[in-house]
């Protein structure tokens, strides 16, 4: 008898891969960037489907396909999740302490830098009428 197509394995794998590669999209919205709820949910759904598929493949191997490729897909999905978790929960938190950064009520260090038009700007140019928000960016777009 021809065994049945084990769709949860395929779908689970696609959803788990989507959990990794959708990061750039979800990172555009603060609510899904500050904590990657959306990506973790995709990984969770993908894992549940993969487990369902593996359960079927190993529980009723005469009826369902997928013991070998299901295991391989599950292993790849696990590696992708490990990479994601390492980047999100370790690499992104490797931020310098900046212990000597100016603190509230201290004088802000003066500077003179060119703006996007090549015009030199000094801090005091920016202070009137109500001060300035300085935003340091990582850059390299």
């Amino acid at each position, binding site marked *: 008898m021809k065994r049945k197509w084990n769709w949860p394995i395929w779908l689970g794998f696609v959803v788990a891969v989507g959990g990794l590669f959708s990061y750039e999209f979800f*990172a555009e919205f*603060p609510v899904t*960037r*500050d904590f*990657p709820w959306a990506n973790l949910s995709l990984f969770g759904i993908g894992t549940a489907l993969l487990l369902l598929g593996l359960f079927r493949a190993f529980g009723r191997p005469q009826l369902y396909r997928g013991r070998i490729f299901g295991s391989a897909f599950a292993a790849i999905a696990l590696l992708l999740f490990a990479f994601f978790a390492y980047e*999100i929960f370790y690499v*992104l*938190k490797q*931020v*310098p302490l*900046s*212990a*000597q*950064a*100016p*603190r*509230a*009520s*201290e*004088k*802000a*260090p*003066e*500077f003179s*830098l*060119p*703006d*996007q*038009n*090549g015009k030199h*700007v000094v*801090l*005091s140019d*920016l*202070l*009137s*009428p*109500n*001060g*300035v*928000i*300085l*935003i*340091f*960016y*990582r*850059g*390299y*777009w």
Partner: protein
Amino acid sequence: MHLAAISVDPVDVTAAHCRKLGYTFTFLSDADAAVIKRYDVLHRGAGPKGNDIARPAEFYVDRNGVVQWVNLTENIAVRARPEQALSAIDAASLSH
């Protein structure tokens, strides 16, 4: 109130970026990271080619040149929200 961004990108890169995204606020180029170091917000080797760049950081400096609010994130993905900056400015102007 002014808004000024600072990165290590050279002026031409910053100019192209501002054109592309429609930024009209001041975007300063600190190519040798001298000001970034002065503010102690350097992230050594964190650039794409292992170069030094700025870590994300936000400061509100009042009209007298005094820092009123500092946001130093502990996670590169988590940045200050506009509301945070605005409430810091409100608090600073109330105390004047």
